[in-house]
C-alpha cells in the first residue's frame, strides 16, 4: 500500500511539474490550476505557522506562565483588523508603527556597521597585491557614479564625469560575470527536475 501512495505521489508531482513548465508557451488552465494550488498551499503553510506562534508563544505564556505582558502584542495584532472598519481604521496604524520602528532601528544599526564600516575596512586591510589596490580604486570610482547632488556639475562635466563612466564599465563587468556564473546553478536545478521526470517518473534510467 505504502509504495502505491508514493507512486501516485510521483505521478501528481510530475503532472504539476509539467503544468508549471507550460507557463511560457500558452495561457492554459493547466498553469492556472497549478498556480491556484501553490498559492493555496503557500498561504496555508504560513497561516499554520502564524496560528502556532500565537498559541504556543503568546497564549501559552499567559495561561501557563502568567506573563500578562503578552496581552499587548495580541491586542496590537487584533488592531490590524480595524483597517476593515471605516470608523476605527486609524487604530491599525499602531501595530504598523511598532513593526516599522523595529525595522528602521535594525537597519540603521546593523546595516551601517556591516555594509559601511566592514566593507571599507576589508577593502583597505592588507593591500599588498596589485589586484587588491585595483579593487580599492574600482570601489571609489564606482561610488562616484551614485552621487546625486553635491558636486552634480562635477559629475556631469568635471572629473567625476570620467570616473562615473569608468564606474559604469566596472559595474557592467560585474553584472555580466554574476549573470554568467549563475547560469550553472540554475541549469543544475533544471537538470535535477528533468532527472526526476526521466528516471523517477518515466523510469527510463
Amino acid at each position, binding site marked *: 500500500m505504502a509504495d502505491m501512495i508514493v507512486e501516485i*505521489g510521483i505521478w501528481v*508531482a510530475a503532472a*504539476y*511539474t509539467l503544468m*508549471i*513548465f507550460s*507557463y511560457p508557451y500558452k495561457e492554459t488552465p493547466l498553469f492556472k*490550476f497549478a498556480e*491556484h494550488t501553490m498559492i*493555496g*498551499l503557500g*498561504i*496555508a*503553510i*504560513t497561516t*499554520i505557522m*502564524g*496560528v502556532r*506562534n*500565537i498559541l504556543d*508563544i*503568546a497564549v501559552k505564556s499567559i495561561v501557563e506562565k502568567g506573563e500578562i*505582558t503578552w496581552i499587548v*502584542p495580541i491586542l496590537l*495584532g487584533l488592531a490590524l*483588523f480595524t483597517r476593515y472598519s471605516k470608523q476605527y481604521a*486609524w487604530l491599525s496604524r499602531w501595530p*504598523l508603527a511598532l*513593526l*516599522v*520602528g*523595529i525595522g*528602521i*532601528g535594525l537597519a*540603521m*544599526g546593523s546595516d*551601517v556597521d556591516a*555594509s*559601511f564600516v566592514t566593507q571599507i575596512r576589508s577593502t583597505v586591510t592588507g593591500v599588498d597585491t596589485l589586484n587588491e589596490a*585595483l579593487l*580599492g580604486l*574600482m*570601489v571609489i570610482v*564606482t*561610488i562616484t*557614479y551614485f552621487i546625486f547632488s553635491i558636486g552634480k556639475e562635477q559629475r556631469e562635466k568635471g572629473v567625476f564625469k570620467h570616473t562615473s563612466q569608468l564606474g559604469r*564599465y*566596472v559595474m557592467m*563587468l*560585474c553584472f*555580466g*560575470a*554574476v*549573470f*554568467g*556564473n*549563475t*547560469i*550553472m546553478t*540554475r541549469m543544475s536545478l533544471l537538470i535535477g527536475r528533468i532527472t526526476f521526470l526521466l528516471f523517477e517518473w518515466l523510469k527510463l534510467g
Partner: protein
Amino acid sequence: MSFLKNRQIPIGITLVVGLVMLVNYYFGAALPPAKSAATLVQNWAVIVAAFALLIGLINISRIHINHLLKRTKGQWIFSLWLLAIMYTMIALGLIGTTKNPGYQWLYNYVFLPIDATMYASLAFFISSAAYRAFRARNLESSLLLASGVVTMLMNAPIGEIIWAAFPVIGDWIMVVPNVATMRAIMICIVMGSVSLGLRTLLVMERGYLGREE
C-alpha cells in the same frame, strides 16, 4: 476619544521603538534594560506579524469568495479549488499537526515539486534574458557580453577545452570588479537606508501613515 485618533501616537511608537533598537545595538552590552526592551519588542513583533498572516488569509479569501459569488467566468472554479485546498491544508496542519500524513503528502508531493520546478524554471528565463541582453550595442553592453560569456565558459567543463584562459580571466572578474561593485553598491545602500530611516522617524516619508485623519 479624538485624542487617540491623532497621528502623534503611531509616530511616537515608531520613534521610541526605533531608538530602543538603536540604543540596544550600540549600548546593549552596557545597558541591560535596553537589551531586554529590544528583545521584548522583537518578540511582540513576531506575534503582530502572526496576526498579519491572518489578514493575508482574509484578503485572499475575500477575493476568491467574491469570484465564487459573482460566478466570474473561467475563474470561479479555480477560486473554489484554491479555497478548498487552502482550508483543507490549514485544517490538516492545525488539527493534525504538521506530522499528519495528509499534510505531509500534500507538502511532499504537491508543494515541494512545484517549489523545485519554479526554481528550475529560472534556467529557462536566465537563458532568454542572456540571449536578449548580451548584444554588443555599445561599449557597456559589450563588456556585459564579454564577462558573461567568459564566466559561462569558465564553469562549463567544455569551456576549458576551448581555451584554457577562460577560468583565469573568469576568476579575475569574479574576484576584482565583482567584489568592487558589490562593495560600492552596499556602501551607497547604507546611505539610502539611513536617510530613509531618518525621514520615516521624522515623519517626512509618511507613505505608511497615510493622509491626515
